């Protein structure tokens, strides 16, 4: 599969899904007006890859390196993490790194809240260096 690469804008994060290297990266800020229009195609593109990764029992590393997420965007991150957790339940070995500024309580708590009910993937809150 060709990598999915989307450059960051003021309102949307950079996306770099390198399927060959089995690494998925989301980096930047997220507060677009139409969250579904941005994340819908990304989730749709990721779905078949994760199905295959689960069947092949592949290890996939996922990194979220965000500096701001508005309330409307949290729905898409919840959906993305739920999709990753499903892939892990179905056989993929998913490792999620939620990278935050150590001073950023809001994003740290958001990561904890989003990840606390994900039972199948492995995850860590990592301080940005």
């Amino acid at each position, binding site marked *: 599969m060709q990598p999915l690469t989307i450059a960051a804008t003021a309102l949307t994060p950079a996306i770099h899904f390198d399927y060959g290297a089995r690494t998925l990266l989301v980096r930047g800020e997220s*507060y*677009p007006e139409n969250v579904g229009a941005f994340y819908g195609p990304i989730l749709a593109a990721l779905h078949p890859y994760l199905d295959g990764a689960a069947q092949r029992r592949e290890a996939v590393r996922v990194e979220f390196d965000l500096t*701001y997420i508005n*309330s*409307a965007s949290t*729905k898409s991150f*919840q*959906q993305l993490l739920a999709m990753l957790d499903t892939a892990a339940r179905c056989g993929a070995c998913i490792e999620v790194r939620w990278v935050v500024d150590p*001073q950023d309580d809001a994003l740290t708590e958001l990561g904890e809240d*989003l990840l606390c009910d994900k039972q199948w993937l492995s995850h860590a809150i990592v301080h940005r260096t």
Partner: protein
Amino acid sequence: MNALAATHASESSSALFVHSGQLSEAVIATTSQSLRARLAGAGIASDRARKIFSSYVELAYNILHYAYPDSREQTTAVRNGDLIVNRSAAEYSVSARNRISLAMLEVLTARIEQLRSMSVEQIRFEYRLRLTNLQFENEQSASKGAGLGLLTVARNASRPLEYSVYWDPADQQTCLLSIHTAI
């Protein structure tokens, strides 16, 4: 700056940031970046600056989504509002003022009253509950963030949200709503 913003700004001599006029996604992008630069320049502690930024963005989108004319009826209409970040001796505040239909006023003020009645722990609990339930929502759902916007503003706040309503007796359809949050 229009008359509304001028009135508001004059209430305090320490307006840190003011936007008055049209709002769109592009305007929110530009003004929020300007605000962030202003917050950094003012030497505000990073956690507080993040909360001010977050409440500004949530209240700006609140205007975009709920200001008159209702977006359910007129999706392409231009929406206007005033956003003011103020600094006083003890705290920072973000105020958002816009015209709103009476039907939407009822929805938003009921929500703010509900948030005002909740403790910090209850706000945190509801936030976590809504976050967990988000994954089960339909992608085409009309809800814009499931009401998480004002909840996020309440989470950032150092005391309960406040609001004021300004009526014009000659106007039977709309009024002005001002939402005020201290950080």
